[in-house]
């Protein structure tokens, strides 16, 4: 993605967003339009020199507005163009074709799921990349046990996972993050891209495993 980040925040906000047409909300739209990854509220707050709470509130409002829910203001967006779509404008509040979402630790523009059939004609990636069941299960083990060595994942799955792990790394879903201080084995963890693919903002949002598995944590040491 970007090159090595250096000590950030040494520049002042280049402009007072309140003086611009559309204010903070429009400034956020402008920035997210060029972002190629989720952008955190913290980063936005820093660039715009606006408190994080205000940034979050503005983003929440935008999201609600795009979703066709009424925003804080009473005015609403009505993107329906009269020529064709007049039939749908029942409530006067219509979702836009895009949405703003918090995934992978930040905010990002997405096309709305309903439009997948027309959008997919313009984007190739994402259609070709179904994961095999073995890959999916391996990914699940890493997601819940990270950071974790390949040996440990192998032990839990009962099969050699080297090939699958390499594929998952090549796909950007897993990354080598560290080395075990004792064994020296490489440790793997999921990436922000993994969170994006699952539509999650953070690992805490992973489905609870406990209903599926009572009391498994204690047997961790059984197979180092």
């Amino acid at each position, binding site marked *: 993605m970007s090159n090595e980040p250096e000590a950030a925040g040494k520049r002042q906000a280049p402009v007072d967003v309140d003086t611009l047409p559309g204010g903070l909300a429009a400034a956020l739209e402008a920035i*997210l*339009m*060029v*972002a*190629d*990854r989720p952008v955190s509220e913290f980063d936005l707050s820093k660039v715009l020199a606006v408190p994080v709470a205000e940034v979050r509130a503005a983003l929440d409002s935008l999201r609600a507005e795009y979703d066709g829910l009424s925003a804080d203001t009473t005015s609403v967006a009505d993107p329906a163009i009269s020529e064709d779509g007049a039939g749908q404008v029942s409530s006067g509040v219509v979702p836009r074709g*895009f*949405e703003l*979402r918090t995934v992978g630790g930040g905010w*990002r*523009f*997405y*096309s*709305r*799921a*309903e439009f*997948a059939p027309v*959008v*997919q004609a313009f*984007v190739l990636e*994402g259609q070709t990349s*179904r*994961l*095999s*069941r*073995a*890959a*999916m*299960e*391996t*990914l*699940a*083990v890493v*997601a*819940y046990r990270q950071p974790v060595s390949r040996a440990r994942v192998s032990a*839990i*799955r*009962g*099969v*050699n*996972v*080297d*090939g*699958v792990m390499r*594929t998952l790394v090549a796909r950007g879903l897993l990354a080598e993050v560290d080395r075990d201080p004792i064994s020296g084995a490489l440790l793997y963890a999921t990436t922000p891209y993994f969170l*994006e*693919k*699952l*539509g*999650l903002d953070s690992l805490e949002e*992973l*489905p609870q*495993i406990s209903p*599926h*598995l009572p*009391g*498994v944590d204690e*047997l961790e040491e*059984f*197979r180092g």
Partner: protein
Amino acid sequence: MSTLVPEVDAGELSPGLSSGFAVELENFAGPFEVLLGLIGKHELDITTVSLAQVTDEFIEYVRALRLENSPAALDAASEFLVIAATLLDLKAARLLPRGEVSDEEDLALLEARDLLFARLLQYKAFKDVAALMGESMRIESARQARSVPLDPEFASLLPELVWRTTPEQFAEIARKAFEARTETPTEVGTDHLHGFAVTVRQEAEELRLLLEDGAEHGFRSLIAHAESVLVVVVRFLALLELFRDRAVDLRQEHPLDELWVTWTAASDWTADRLSDEHDRPVLPDDDGADASVTPQEVSA
């Protein structure tokens, strides 16, 4: 611990396996998978798996895969050892002297059995969660994230690159980048998967000869001249049988440490004293083919 295993629904375990445990190369996902499938097929409580039956069927399964003669089949076959170890865990627990949990070590071994079941459960739990995650991914794939090239207007603002890399250094970076990905995968021989019949009684007899001097022998030395991994496995089973028959004493300081064995039975002991259940030879394969495979899962 068995309360952890309220029910094992045969149907949901592995739908594909209901068709008589047919060969399913694409879906082969390892011994736990197979074991779960077998348990499901026989509608067995996971805590009372009939080992003899499951072992036989697993070997049958591996054999069927080998006949397919595909790389996936070889992968599957190479995993024989893993399931063998798994079954061995179960077997070891069952071979313990029953009804007399006298000390901590016995207790620990009994717990090992429960831990094995727990591991199977853990495996199943991850399978379930993986299915949920897969569904999330599928739903999520309907949305597409905006990810567009940076406008030239902004790209031109990026700081001018400081470049100190010489063409030679650059070539070296390229060479390393290519090399890193072209390591050859580890080869694992599967010669152990076929050959000769091995029986627990034979191996018990073999052990008796080795231990007769009455000295304490490390298990490593007892298997030092074993012809194959299969012999090692069966010899270890034999050792457990001998232990149950109180023909040997075992000593191990810590898990994974050397296992020390001392002969304790009378001099007239013979392997005939062992139970009948091991009379049938373990014969993992008979097609005589040899191969070595790369232990990689098949990722479609």
